């Protein structure tokens, strides 16, 4: 079932359409990636989901019914532009933000104590935010985002501004939240994180969804039946043994092996590739070339706009 879905969201600004009939469906328990180049409208969509700004057209559903203003209590949002009051102490600030989320004073205190202990940051409670490093501040922000145990978590560019260690920490926490049953939407243009984390994606380009669905199905449709084969160095080029319908895209070599990237005819299988060469060369490995999200991203965007090629 979809925890959240948006139907045909349109947002107009005076001189342009920020979103043009954008629809997304976020299944419960999934990690949903919102991809797209800068300025495509990701942040606008996220702000609409958070009801920070209103859409001009379209409807949104949460948990099977229309999204209501007080559903924000079930949503945790970590914006791309995020920060904390510099002059306030960490504890007071966390208490303030937790209570704004609708938690009672006592509840906020209990939960925060728990998390501060878990993250081993109890000693920060009375320190001012300006005394903390950026990574430390991000930890606090993350903690505040999840403190009210929302069913839907929305992260806008969660990895921007992180060093690799903290980015990894963040990733683990996101996965941990998924384990706990939260549904997660995050926007990014970091394709590596998409492959690692996302089950579903929607690719937004120039205010429209140009591609959406399950990551593994998208990858399947973008597969080109291409394989990389490696064999011993010094042996004859495979070109000599393969029928013309097998297209050799690239050949290269390192001190030990030779490699060939071969595009098979649509109806051919890897077996058809191996048969004619098995007795001729010593095969080291055979691997299907799976398109990376990066390639799919670029391909999808350039397909929409051939002039970019």
């Amino acid at each position, binding site marked *: 079932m979809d925890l959240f879905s948006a139907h045909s969201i349109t947002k107009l600004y005076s001189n342009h359409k920020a979103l043009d009939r954008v629809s997304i469906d976020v299944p419960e328990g999934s990690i949903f990636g919102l991809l797209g180049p800068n300025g495509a409208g990701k942040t606008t969509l996220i702000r609409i989901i958070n009801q920070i700004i209103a859409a001009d057209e379209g409807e949104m559903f949460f948990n099977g019914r229309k999204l209501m203003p007080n559903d924000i209590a079930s949503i945790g949002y970590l914006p791309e*532009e*995020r*920060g904390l009051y510099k002059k306030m102490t960490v504890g007071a600030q966390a208490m303030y933000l937790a209570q704004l*989320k609708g938690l009672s004073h006592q509840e906020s205190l209990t939960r925060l104590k728990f998390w501060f202990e878990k993250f081993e940051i109890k000693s920060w409670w009375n320190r001012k935010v300006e005394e903390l490093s950026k990574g430390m501040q991000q930890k606090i922000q993350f903690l505040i985002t999840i403190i009210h145990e929302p069913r839907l978590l929305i992260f806008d560019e969660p990895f921007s501004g992180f060093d690799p260690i903290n980015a990894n920490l963040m990733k683990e926490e996101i996965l941990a939240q998924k384990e706990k049953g939260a549904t997660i939407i995050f926007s990014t243009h970091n394709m590596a994180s998409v492959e690692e984390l996302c089950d579903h994606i929607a690719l937004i380009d120039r205010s429209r969804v140009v591609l959406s669905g399950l990551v593994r199905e998208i990858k399947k449709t973008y597969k080109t039946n291409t394989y990389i084969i490696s064999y011993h160095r010094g042996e004859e080029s495979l070109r000599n043994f393969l029928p013309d319908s097998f297209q050799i895209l690239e050949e290269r070599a390192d001190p030990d092996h030779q490699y060939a990237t071969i595009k098979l005819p649509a109806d051919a299988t890897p077996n058809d590739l191996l048969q004619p060469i098995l007795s001729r060369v010593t095969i080291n490995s055979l691997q299907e070339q799976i398109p990376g999200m990066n390639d799919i991203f670029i391909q999808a965007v350039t397909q929409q706009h051939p002039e970019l090629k």
Partner: protein
Amino acid sequence: MRKIFLIIQREYMTRVKKRSFVIMTILGPLLMAGTIVVPMYLATRTNEIKNISVLDETGIFLEKFKDSDNFKFHYLVSDINSAKSSFTKSGDYALIYIPKTEVTLPTNAIIYAENTVNISVQSYVRNVMSKQIEELKLQARLRELQTDKNEPVSVDDILRSIKTSIDINTLKIGEDGKESKSYTEINMVLGMVAGILIYFFIFMFGSQVMRGVIEEKTSRIVEVIISSVKPFQLMMGKIIGVGLVGLTQFLLWVVLTFGIVTVVTATMTTKEIKKTTTEQLMQRNEAISPVTADALTIKQAEPKQGGNEVIEAINSVNFPVMIGSFLFFFLVGYLMYAALFAAIGGAVDSEADTQQFMLPITLPLILSIILAQVIIQDPDGAVSFWFSIIPLTSPVVMMIRIPFGVPYIQVILSMVLLLLGFLGTTWLAAKIYRTGILMYGKKVNYKELWKWISYKS
């Protein structure tokens, strides 16, 4: 509601705990008390008795002005021109001239002096004159009542019918005998102080609101917050929170100043208890018929212990109206301007960018202060009227006018328009604010602001 309360609470607590707030709260009253206490102290130090000559052409006030420790009255029998010329030579402190009137009772006096006349002298003269005239009127009224016993009568009616206001002009008279008007009337001082306080308060706390909004923008916390609350709630929470800080500071100033002044004057006057003007008047009232004397006593400002002349003069002002309208114009004026300050804060990225938008906001405020001089000279003129009605200038200008006495209808009209102005600016500001706080790194101009205002919510 709980959320807006949380916001107000945070805005209030973080500011009240600041060191600058504590310092301002202590320094303010010390300064203000100083300006009151020091002249008083100096006045008690000088044992010099000031001579005041009185030229009463009506003859009503003969021997009514009583000598005090600081003032000695003597009565002249001459015409005004020779009185003036002898006054410039005599070295007397002041000359009180009550011109002759036909038919009506005299209600105005002119005080001539070489320097500005002490406000206590003025209020004393005013009090003596109005009491005397009211007494005369009362006696006439009582005679009337005795002849017509059937007429229903209430003390209130009598009091209202005899109420008299006295016009006092103060003129500076030079060595050469040339006259020029001087302004020392207590209502002028009060009006100016109230107007300047409002001006100061709006600027100080309005820009605190603006800085608070900019802080939230630059620290990038604003989007985190508005994912939990509506931008309007955040804006109003901040405005109200900062307003309460201002009110707290103001009340602390008043209470502390009053406390300091009371303590100091008490210690200063224990040695020497002066008979106050008020006490003198009280005694006089006791001589009249008991019923009306009681009524008059109630009406009378309570006798102040310590008998300070400045405080006495201040007592002559209608304080309930003054304080009530001050609080109203103070708060609603602040609310109206604070919304505009919040909108500017929301539209810009840093304080340096605020310049271009500040002008239209500061202009009406500065204009009100510039106009103060004109308004004091002619508190009922067209300029005074219009600027005390237009919402952007009314908080300051109306407060300058009120001590002089403004028809209630005008005050109410001004208040209603100010409330509408507050609603209008808040509505406008909210639109700019909610778009502005989500814009980073964008140079904004008026055209852009207009676009934001016209976005639908």
